[in-house]
């Protein structure tokens, strides 16, 4: 089999082939071949495989998810080299555990795989970071932590990314979070105005590190003494 299966669509499609992609059924489409390979390789760590609207979902035990994604990334028969998204799902049904979701894409094989790990109820919301496999996981995991409060073990810089860092009201996308936040409007406004967005960032993050030599001497002195640019 060729590594690339070219699907002709639209005007470039040969006669007889529909111009649009085929209709997918809700369940019962063929699974991504990576799912079977994962079951052979990892056995019981792969809890369940579902195919929904033609997309394969693999449920993985949370303790092995790092190994699974590492293998998917490295193995020459898988080559999932693109991490599209890291997110989480909390269901309204309190019995259903929170799921962490990874969207993986294999550009050489044109495959898409959705890996899910269910964090059992009552356990701390912690899971291994995949930052050492995909650098793209940096901000994605920070967002997931910001919105859901899931801590990624091994992430180099796990802090809020969408809300400001001193945000105290909790994790907005959790189901127990009220839509308007926990504090009153005036308290929210007071805390928001009290944030100092410039105080946190290092020279590298302010991207003046490259221009350090061109800075005036007094500014270099002040930066060397640890002075921040904010008030």
């Amino acid at each position: 089999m060729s590594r690339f299966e070219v699907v002709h669509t639209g005007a470039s499609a040969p006669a007889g082939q529909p111009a649009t992609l085929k209709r997918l059924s809700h369940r019962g489409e063929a699974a991504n071949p990576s799912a079977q390979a994962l079951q052979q390789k990892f056995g019981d760590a792969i809890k369940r495989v579902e195919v929904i609207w033609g997309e394969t979902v693999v449920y993985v035990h949370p303790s092995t998810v790092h190994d699974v994604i590492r293998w998917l990334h490295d193995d020459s028969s898988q080559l999932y080299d693109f991490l599209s998204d890291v997110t989480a799902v909390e269901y309204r049904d309190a019995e259903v555990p929170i799921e962490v979701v990874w969207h993986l894409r294999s550009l050489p094989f044109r495959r898409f795989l959705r890996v899910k790990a269910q964090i059992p109820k009552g356990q701390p919301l912690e899971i291994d970071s995949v930052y050492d496999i995909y650098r793209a996981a940096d901000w994605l995991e920070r967002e997931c932590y910001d919105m859901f409060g899931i801590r990624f073990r091994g992430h180099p810089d796990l802090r809020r990314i969408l809300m400001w860092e001193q945000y105290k009201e909790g994790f907005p996308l959790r189901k127990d979070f009220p839509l308007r936040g926990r504090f009153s409007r005036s308290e929210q406004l007071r805390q928001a105005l009290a944030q100092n967005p410039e105080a946190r960032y290092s020279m590298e993050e302010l991207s003046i590190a490259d221009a350090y030599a061109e800075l005036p001497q007094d500014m270099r002195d002040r930066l060397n003494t640890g002075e921040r640019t904010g008030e």
Partner: protein
Amino acid sequence: MGLSASGEHRTVSYAPEAQEGWIATRLDFVVNWARANSLWPMPFGTACCAIEFMATAASDFDLARFGMERMSFSPRQADVLICAGRVPFKLAPIIRRIWQQMPQPKWSISMGACASTGGMFDNYAVVQGIDTIIPVDVYVPGCPPRPEGLIYGIRMLQEKVKNERAADKGTRDEMEPDPTSQLYIPPSVIDELGEPFGNSVNQTRSGL
């Protein structure tokens, strides 16, 4: 509500012959004429209102007709802050700092429903009206307002500028948000302004 201004800060109606001499009032007229016709806007565009604002500045509607041909992307050379779009809480200190960086005399326009009231974004992340952060001279309603609406708001602001008087120091005072100042909105009023209304009352249910 505690928002009514005291007498000395009220905008004084323009009745020159009654209060001051001819030269002083003519000087006011010249200064205000120059200011009103050379307002340089500081565009603070965060959302779809900014698209309408760009359309207003472009050739079809041509904001340059009203002396606003130069967008001042530096607040230090700006006269009027046009906040076009929703302002999340994370931007609140930034818009306040931009306002503080602008030199006097300065005015501000709150463009669109989100900047004026929070609009449909009645949630944890969006400021319910920028008048809880900075003083606002003209509110332009709409979601987003058409360019004609923004131009009407700018014309209203020009009318306001033309009716200002140099002798009335109250309009140009830098008023910090301390309880004795006229710009201070007490927390109870902010909470009252942020109260849910309409269909959005039902959104407080968290589902659990």
